[in-house]
């Protein structure tokens, strides 16, 4: 391949105990592409993102980030398990925002953001604080730097979580139902922030969301996912407006009825 993909899943298998979640999954995402994953609950959407974030390890198959295997390296021509240092280097290319924010409750907002740059990148504190302050400004929370996470609303927490993930300047950002825990109006504001962000950066972005309007606005490509398989894969118009598979149509009907 001369044009390196940002993300490749090659024959990925993943099961938890007896539940097979992903079976023989193949997926390629181009650099800078915005991919939205939709699908019913329990279909394995989060598992894909968690695998990319190295929160889970695949049972078999290869995950490549920018052409490089995350879990394996070649030594003396053989494919061997990668060192922890290699895995950490690969992990550094990816950032993630979670459904339930997962802010550190014992650290103030600013520290939530500066912690990783200081401890992971070895950035001087003053520079980390400057960057965190800029990021807080970008997510509209410049005045909350010294607040505790518990003092923030859900929407504010998620903004901080986004700033925190951005502070490490990842090449790939993962968003797992980041507005599912928010009420609709606040969710809309957070999604608008992400839309603006997506326009300003070159990052590859993967979204799991149930917000079809947002999916339409942000996606270069939509994947419909069911029981660990990609059922449909195309532009938002193709997948959301002209689904080919009955399973996709049924799912979309349910989603539109609910909203």
């Amino acid at each position: 391949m001369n044009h390196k993909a940002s993300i490749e899943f090659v024959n990925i298998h993943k099961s938890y105990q007896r539940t097979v979640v992903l079976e023989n999954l193949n997926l390629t995402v181009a650099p800078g592409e915005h991919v939205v994953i939709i699908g019913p609950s329990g279909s394995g959407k989060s598992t894909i993102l968690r695998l990319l974030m190295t929160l889970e390890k695949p049972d078999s198959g290869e995950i490549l980030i920018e052409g490089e295997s995350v879990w394996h390296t070649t030594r003396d021509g053989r494919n061997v398990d990668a060192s922890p240092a290699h895995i950490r280097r690969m992990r550094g290319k990816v950032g993630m925002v979670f459904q339930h924010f997962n802010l550190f409750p014992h650290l103030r907002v600013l520290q939530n953001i500066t912690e990783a740059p200081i401890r992971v990148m070895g950035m001087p504190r003053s520079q980390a604080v400057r960057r965190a302050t800029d990021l807080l400004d970008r997510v509209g929370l410049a005045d909350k730097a010294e607040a505790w996470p518990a003092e923030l609303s859900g929407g504010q927490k998620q903004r901080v979580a986004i700033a925190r993930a951005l502070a490490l300047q990842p090449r790939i950002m993962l968003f797992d139902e980041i507005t599912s825990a928010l009420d609709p109006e606040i969710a809309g504001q957070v999604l608008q922030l992400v839309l603006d962000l997506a326009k300003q950066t070159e990052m590859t972005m993967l979204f799991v969301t149930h917000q079809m309007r947002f999916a339409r606005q942000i996606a270069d490509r939509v994947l419909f996912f069911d029981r660990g398989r990609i059922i449909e894969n195309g532009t938002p118009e193709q997948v959301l407006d002209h689904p080919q598979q009955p399973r996709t149509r049924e799912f979309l009907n349910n989603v539109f009825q609910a909203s």
Partner: protein
Amino acid sequence: MLHMLPMMLRGALVTGEVTAGAIVVASVASSCAVAMRLSTLTALDWPARVYIELFRGTSALIQLFWAFYALPLVLPFRPSPIITAIVVLGLNGGAYGAEILRGAILSVPRGQHDAATALNFSATTKVFRVVLPQAWPLILPPMANLFIDMLKNSALAGLVQVTDITFNAQILQESTLRNAEVYGLALVIYFIMALVLAGFMRLLERRMKFPVGARI
């Protein structure tokens, strides 16, 4: 009663030494044991389990007697009574402490581990900057209980020749036969020491606090 005071206070000093020493031993032992228990290596998990069950499952007094009367038979030297008491009571407390630590550490939500990993924290950073700071508020109150228990348990040391409050109270009781005063004084001294210890632990608790409130 005043003439009893110097001897009882000397005893209090020894009780303080035994308790403080045992708390240090317990802290080290419980930290090691919990690190081993939570490690992914079963080779480390097992010895820690055996230690915890052994010390929780047998009486502290018998442990002390055994260390004092039986252990020296196999050791090339005889440790002093106070050292024996500190180590045995410390290891005993450490077994309970390890379980307190384990419960608190395991109660830190998975999302916190996920966030730490997603931010590419090293294992050490994760433990010391994310997990432990959140476990502290859950560790300190039961730890305070344990330490106060250890203070009271230190009275057992008096049975193996350590000249602590209990030991000295018994001597005074035998020479004066004034049970009410001697043991009353002992009670008061233990009580004051427990108050001081509890106050200190509460101070720590306050320093470790952060606004918990809603789930983050």
